[in-house]
């Protein structure tokens, strides 16, 4: 029901929306909750466990009851608080946790079964049989309980994340925050003022108080306008600061477009901010707490402060006959304002004795309590208990106030605990709990408007001082300065279920039962009853539950203590926190210069780290990848193949001490390498295990080019930076990654030199360019680098050109190779070629292998120290029983080998304790005509010719294998030298 002349809504702008399919009309400025209340729709949800009918309790983000689903299909969003969702034309809202309808919910049968469903019910009931846990109990419980559901379709909306920086972050734009921001803004500080509401002003917009001779709403609007005009102040409405983190960092969720019909426009729905603030002021206000009594969850029972918000902010009377119940003066304000607005006040019930109200237009019952409420889907009457007995009065709305809890949450995010303040019967922030943060105003236990102005100004002055800025004088606005007096009342005695946590359906008796069953610690009580574990994290119930627990255990509230406060303050969607990480955004893609050509040749691409590389290049009639792979292996063995190897890490190393660096990081010596030569090198970690391998070319006296494996490029680069900065900063040497600067292609096969000589400006021969030579060449006038190295074991080269020529060179090389009976080859063929030669990849050097394990201990130079050398001499790393690299070939009926299978002696049971080793890489060798493999076998080098049983437990494959040398083709290595 709307009240004329009140509210900050635009009555010239009607907005229509639907709730459970029915069309409703509100005004611009309404929330779903205010518009539904204005239309007399008070039933807004069903409770989590008992499916009790529920109406709206609050007017803010702490709302436990009125959770709804907005939107349809992939755009639907569950568990949206109706109290914060602004309405817009066409908004579709659905109720949750009710079937078939909100009005008639079959699961409400749970409410009748409530004597059996109290705290600990699940723990005690669904114990046995064990096999029912996953198959029966969990699906049933999950279906019966819960709030909104996800659509199950991919989220089509855009989200953002962003960083912001400021001198001073002011959290909350009520009287405290506005005053603080004004003082800091006028003093020239960089200020961010964030508030979760769409309209800044906080309680100034909720009350009808006069500030500086004008309505508080108008005063707030003026200040906001002044702040908006300042270049050094950034206003962030609809932004909840959700967490405080180390070093002045804050997380914040901005609901950028949640208040508009914006689906499909590409505009971000939400933005997750990380705000770096030198100083901060917490002006988060306070949350009003209910009083527990039987059936205090009836729709129509609301917080007294929220009733004033609906009245003053949205011009809505939440009922026709409103009763007010409280333990403090603030409840009186609600009764007064309702009466002034012409709403019938059925009674003001104050639990305190001797309370009088001068000239009240409604009955005032002092020393009385509300002890029950009736009316299932809508409040009809409340039962009042006085000294003379109990009686009912008719009311369709009960405004209730048990006092206010300061919003201390953010001050506790760095492990701080709040302090109990007996004067206001609430917890207040402990000063200094978050470095650089000052809590001020209502969140610090100061409840009058004037008190908040004073606190805001003081906090800003202190923050400015910490920032080294001079405060400017500010005229102090006149405002109410009423004292806040209350008498604690947590739960009204009596039978029947009295609700504490509305969102998780926790009652006073559940907490009492937890205490009786010895879950007396507050953390145990929380987990046993689930008190405060719903999405609202018990914002309006935790303190009351503590008080009930304290009472049940005979302790004080301060002694009972609070549970831990953790971010986020209000729920944050995963989509916002992971903005940019959806789909391809999860990992950047790195493409080689031949990427487009590979795609044009229909090559399936495989990921190698962030790189994409061609798996194979299918041709004509080939129906299986193996056919393509075998053909490509043949190119290299018989003619010439072309493969893009640009993804290998390339590190340019220059300086007078470059050779010293290489001698320290490689096990073998590079200072002795001649200019124009390449050498294979093996690198250890300091703990003695192999880090990486690759070739390193000496391009000049003080100039080397190191290559790394594709996967370890980043790790090796970091390692070199570590050695040059942390171990030998005195060395004159510089390292830089040039991986992306050069496109590099393998030209491999007996016809490789013929191919190159058709392209190079000056031809080469075996004498001028022998195996392991390197040097500068020219290719159509382009400066290129040529390396005679071979991963395939054939006569082969790698040619590198500046990346801008990569695409053109790849096309040219492939065309020439095809004309010579060869062509491009992919990763599958590359792997087979290296397997046939026993060359290593990270399948072999997997972080557990030593130089000895891979048969390279002879490479470790005796003449010098190197990283990892000392530790590689540990007895355990020299143990002859260690797995040693061997070749494997199938000799039994089963011809298939698999990687990752275990190896056992023929008679042994295939269990872990009997394992003699494992296979690391396998492939089908067209040259040998069977599968071949590499693996590690204990004492393997002395066991060539022995037979073992390969068992792949996962794929259920068993094969008989013979151990052999890990080189299958051209063991003398003559081909590479020819």
């Amino acid at each position, binding site marked *: 029901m709307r009240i004329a002349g009140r509210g900050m809504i635009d009555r010239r702008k009607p907005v229509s929306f639907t709730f459970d399919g029915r069309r409703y009309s509100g005004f611009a400025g309404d929330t779903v909750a205010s518009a539904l209340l204005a239309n007399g729709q008070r039933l807004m949800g069903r409770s989590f466990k008992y499916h009790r009918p529920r109406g709206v309790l609050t007017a803010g983000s702490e709302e436990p009851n009125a959770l709804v689903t907005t939107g349809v299909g992939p755009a639907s969003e569950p568990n949206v608080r109706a109290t914060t969702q602004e309405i817009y034309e066409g908004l579709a809202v659905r109720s949750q946790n009710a079937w078939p309808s909100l009005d008639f919910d079959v699961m409400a049968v749970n409410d009748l079964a409530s004597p059996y469903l109290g705290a600990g019910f699940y723990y005690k009931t669904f114990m046995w049989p064990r096999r029912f846990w996953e198959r029966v109990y969990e699906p049933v419980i999950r279906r019966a309980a819960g709030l909104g559901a996800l659509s199950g379709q991919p989220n089509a909306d855009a989200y953002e994340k962003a960083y912001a920086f400021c001198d001073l972050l002011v959290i909350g734009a009520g009287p405290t925050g506005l005053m603080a921001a004004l003082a800091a803004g006028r003093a020239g500080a960089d200020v961010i003022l964030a508030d979760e509401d769409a309209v800044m002003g906080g309680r100034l917009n909720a009350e009808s108080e006069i500030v500086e001779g004008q309505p508080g709403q108008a005063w707030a609007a003026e200040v906001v306008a002044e702040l908006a005009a300042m270049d050094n102040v950034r206003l962030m409405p609809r932004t909840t600061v959700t967490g405080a983190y180390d070093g002045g960092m804050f997380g914040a969720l901005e609901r950028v477009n949640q208040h508009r019909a914006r689906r499909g426009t590409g505009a971000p729905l939400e933005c997750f901010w990380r705000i770096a603030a030198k100083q901060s002021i917490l002006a988060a206000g306070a949350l009003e707490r209910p009083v527990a009594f039987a059936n205090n969850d009836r729709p129509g029972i609301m917080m007294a402060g929220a009733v004033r918000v609906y009245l003053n902010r949205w011009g809505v009377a939440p009922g026709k006959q409103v009763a007010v119940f409280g333990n403090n003066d603030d409840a009186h304000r609600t009764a007064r304002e309702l009466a002034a607005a012409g709403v019938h006040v059925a009674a003001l019930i104050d639990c305190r004795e001797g309370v009088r109200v001068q000239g009240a237009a409604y009955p005032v019952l002092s020393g009385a309590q509300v002890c029950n409420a009736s009316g299932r889907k809508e409040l009809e009457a409340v039962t009042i208990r006085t000294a003379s007995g109990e009686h009912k009065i008719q009311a369709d709305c009960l405004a209730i106030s048990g006092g206010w809890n300061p919003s201390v949450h953010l001050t506790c995010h*760095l492990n701080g605990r709040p302090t109990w303040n007996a004067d206001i019967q609430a917890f207040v922030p402990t000063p200094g709990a978050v470095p650089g943060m000052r809590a001020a105003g209502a969140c610090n236990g100061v409840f009058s408007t004037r008190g908040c102005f004073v606190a805001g100004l003081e906090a800003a002055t202190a923050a400015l001082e910490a920032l080294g800025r001079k405060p400017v004088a500010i005229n102090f606005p006149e405002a109410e300065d009423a004292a806040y007096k209350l008498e604690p009342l947590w739960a009204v005695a009596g039978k029947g279920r009295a609700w504490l946590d509305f969102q998780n359906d926790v009652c006073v008796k559940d907490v009492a039962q937890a205490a009786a069953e010895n879950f007396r610690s507050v953390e145990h009580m929380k987990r046993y009853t689930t008190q405060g574990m719903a999405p609202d994290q018990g914002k309006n119930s935790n303190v009351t539950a503590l008080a009930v627990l304290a009472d049940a255990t005979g302790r004080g509230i301060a002694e009972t203590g609070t549970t831990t406060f953790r971010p986020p303050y209000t729920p944050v969607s995963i989509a916002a926190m992971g903005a940019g990480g959806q789909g391809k955004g999860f990992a950047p893609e790195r493409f080689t210069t031949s990427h487009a050509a590979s795609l044009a040749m229909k090559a399936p691409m495989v990921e190698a780290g962030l790189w994409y590389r061609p798996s194979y290049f299918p041709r004509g009639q080939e129906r299986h990848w193996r056919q393509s792979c075998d053909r490509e292996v043949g190119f290299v063995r018989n003619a010439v193949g072309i493969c893009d190897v640009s993804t290998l890490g390339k590190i340019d190393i220059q300086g007078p001490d470059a050779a010293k660096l290489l001698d320290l990081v490689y096990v073998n010596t590079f200072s002795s390498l001649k200019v124009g030569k390449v050498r294979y090198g093996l690198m250890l970690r300091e703990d003695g295990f192999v880090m990486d391998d690759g070739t390193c070319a000496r391009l000049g006296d003080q100039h080397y080019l190191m290559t790394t494996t594709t996967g370890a490029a980043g790790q090796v680069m970091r390692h070199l930076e570590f050695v040059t*900065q942390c171990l030998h900063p005195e060395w004159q040497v510089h390292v830089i990654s040039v991986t992306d600067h050069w496109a590099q292609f393998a030209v491999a096969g007996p016809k490789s030199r013929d191919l190159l000589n058709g392209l190079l400006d000056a031809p080469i021969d075996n004498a001028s360019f022998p195996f392991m030579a390197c040097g500068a060449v020219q290719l159509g006038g382009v400066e290129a680098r040529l390396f005679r190295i071979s991963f395939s074991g054939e006569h082969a080269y790698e040619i590198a050109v500046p990346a801008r020529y990569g695409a053109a060179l790849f096309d040219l090389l492939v065309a020439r190779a095809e004309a010579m009976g060869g062509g491009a080859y992919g990763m599958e063929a590359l792997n087979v070629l290296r397997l046939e030669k026993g060359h290593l990849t990270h399948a072999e050097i997997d972080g557990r292998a030593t130089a000895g394990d891979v048969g390279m201990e002879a490479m470790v130079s005796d003449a010098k120290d190197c990283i990892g050398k000392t530790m590689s001499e540990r007895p355990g790393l020299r143990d002859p029983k260690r797995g040693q690299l061997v070749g494997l070939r199938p000799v039994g009926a089963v011809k298939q080998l698999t990687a990752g299978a275990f190896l056992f002696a023929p008679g042994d049971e295939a269990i872990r304790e009997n394992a003699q080793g494992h296979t690391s890489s396998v492939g089908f060798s067209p040259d040998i005509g069977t599968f071949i493999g590499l693996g590690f076998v204990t004492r393997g080098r002395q066991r060539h010719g022995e037979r073992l049983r390969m068992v792949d437990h996962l794929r259920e494959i068993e094969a008989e294998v013979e151990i052999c040398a890990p080189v299958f083709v051209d063991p003398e290595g003559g081909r590479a030298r020819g």
Partner: protein
Amino acid sequence: MRIECPICGSRDRREFYYQGAAVALDRPAPDAGDAVWDVYLHLRDNPAGETRDLWQHEGGCGAWLVVTRDTVTHAISAVELASDVKRAMA
């Protein structure tokens, strides 16, 4: 969490790679013996209080840094270039 890189200024922790204790700067001689090498590689204090760690500004200038911070309060009290620290050790 933010780290004040001596070269780049105050940066978000996501730009940095974390290595471990700054002990790594003090690489023993090859013949220092098993016990010394064991301490260098494996034995780490787990202080409730001040600790010195190596971080690399991998997403920035590439500098290795020695960061002194408190494991209880998470306060960072000093950030130095590892190369400066190493030179001072000589």
